[in-house]
């Protein structure tokens, strides 16, 4: 669709993102009803993500509670035009879940993570449309186009909360190989979901597959 080509900071978002922004605006104004609405809309996905990452129902509940309290206090940090409210919210849940898992493990020391996800996790315009239309089958199908080691690396990173170094230690592969698998896997996912590789800036060093 040509709306992707406009490259403007405005959105061609689905009606539900419009509604989400309205809800979030009310949350920013301190409306408890609005927080309740936001929770009801995304509680299942939020809890499911937290549960998948923590594998602990009680910890998952804490993660969801922390995330929504964070949103309650910092709703004004949501940046217009950088992605959907849904993605922003669920990225916060993901972060807190990974934090909780890493705290549970005695190894990696953590910095205090803010409510705001790293800028890259918010979406440019093109992704709003794509993401709005995606469902589990589409993602699962896209994941199936990856090699097994790519899929493993990405799942360990994203759903296991492991760092690339930890993945290297766990799988016995060199760090450079892990980085390469992760990168190629993400590019393959993008290709499967969107149909192109993006601009794909290459670093000035050898990659290994």
């Amino acid at each position, binding site marked *: 669709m040509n709306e992707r080509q*406009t490259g403007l900071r*405005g*959105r061609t978002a689905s*009606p*539900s993102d*419009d*509604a989400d*922004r309205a*809800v979030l*605006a*009310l949350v920013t104004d*301190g*409306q*408890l*009803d609005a927080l*309740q609405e936001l929770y009801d809309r995304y*509680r*299942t*996905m*939020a*809890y499911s*993500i937290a549960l*998948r990452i923590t594998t602990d129902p009680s910890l*998952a*509940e804490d993660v*969801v*509670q922390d995330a929504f*309290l964070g949103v*309650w206090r910092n709703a004004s940090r949501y940046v217009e035009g950088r992605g959907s409210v849904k*993605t922003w919210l669920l*990225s916060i849940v*993901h*972060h807190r879940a990974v934090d909780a898992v890493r705290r549970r493990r005695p190894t*990696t020391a*953590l*910095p205090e993570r803010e409510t705001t996800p*790293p*800028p*890259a996790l918010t*979406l440019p315009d*093109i*992704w709003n449309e794509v*993401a709005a239309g995606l469902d*589990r089958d589409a*993602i699962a199908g896209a994941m199936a186009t990856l090699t097994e080691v790519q899929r493993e690396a990405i799942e360990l*990173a*994203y759903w296991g909360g492991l760092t*690339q170094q930890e*993945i290297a230690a766990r799988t016995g592969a060199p760090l450079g190989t892990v*980085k390469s698998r*992760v990168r190629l896997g*993400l*590019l393959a*996912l*993008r290709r499967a979901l*969107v149909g192109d590789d*993006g601009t*794909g800036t*290459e*670093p000035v060093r050898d990659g290994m597959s």
Partner: protein
Amino acid sequence: MSHDDVIDLASGYVLGALEPAEEAAVRDHLATCSLPHAEFEELGGVVAAMLEDVELVEPPAALRDRIMDAARADLAARASRGPATVATPVAGPEPTPAPPTAFPSAAAREVRRAARTSRLDWALRIAAVIAVVAIGAWGLGLQRQLDAANRFNQSVASVLDAAARPGAQAVILTPAEGKQGRGIAAVAADGTVTMALRDLPTQTGTQVYTAWVIVGKNAPVSVGDFTVDANGIASVTTRPEPAPPGAIIALTLEPNAGNTAPKGEIYATGVAPGAAGATG
């Protein structure tokens, strides 16, 4: 951290899979580097899409109560700490509106319309939150929270009445970038828009505010001129004009009444909501 190093770490970063020190270094770089980092957005988009691939499990009902209790307590704690901070940044009061910037000429609009296929290109000129809400359970909440100015309260009551009628829906009007002016409106089934507005700078001389309905890529249609009182408050009922889902309601400050095409700057906008079930 060099630019190349950052690109090398992009995939790990978007997955949240960097060591803490690396992640901090990348974050700092992104905050200060003026070069584009398209790979972050492209890869980040994939990661966000991965969130969809999760097996769904319902949380326990009690979690909702715990969250709402905590939020309520947080709100009370904030209130007791003193004046609430306004979460939405608002520029200092601007009693004299800036000189109006003209809309692009009809010819320029035509060229632009031809160049883009997005039906939202007019709205995209407005750097504002466009929000839609169904009044439903929030009607009372909104009313309690709004300012106590009598006239505003009365006009809000009119809006809520109008919004309660069959086929009507509520619209929130939010300020354009750098502007004040907000309100709530009800779009009736016949397209009449009833609005309660506040914070609009008082008009001077022959200036009036004009409400416009913009449907798709069509030119804006004026649905009425109005003025705000000394407190920046206005209560407006427009003439009926079809406002299908997605139509934009915009308020401009015009140099004179009776304009059939907008000449003034945009102060606030809202979007007529979609069909029922859009929030489902």
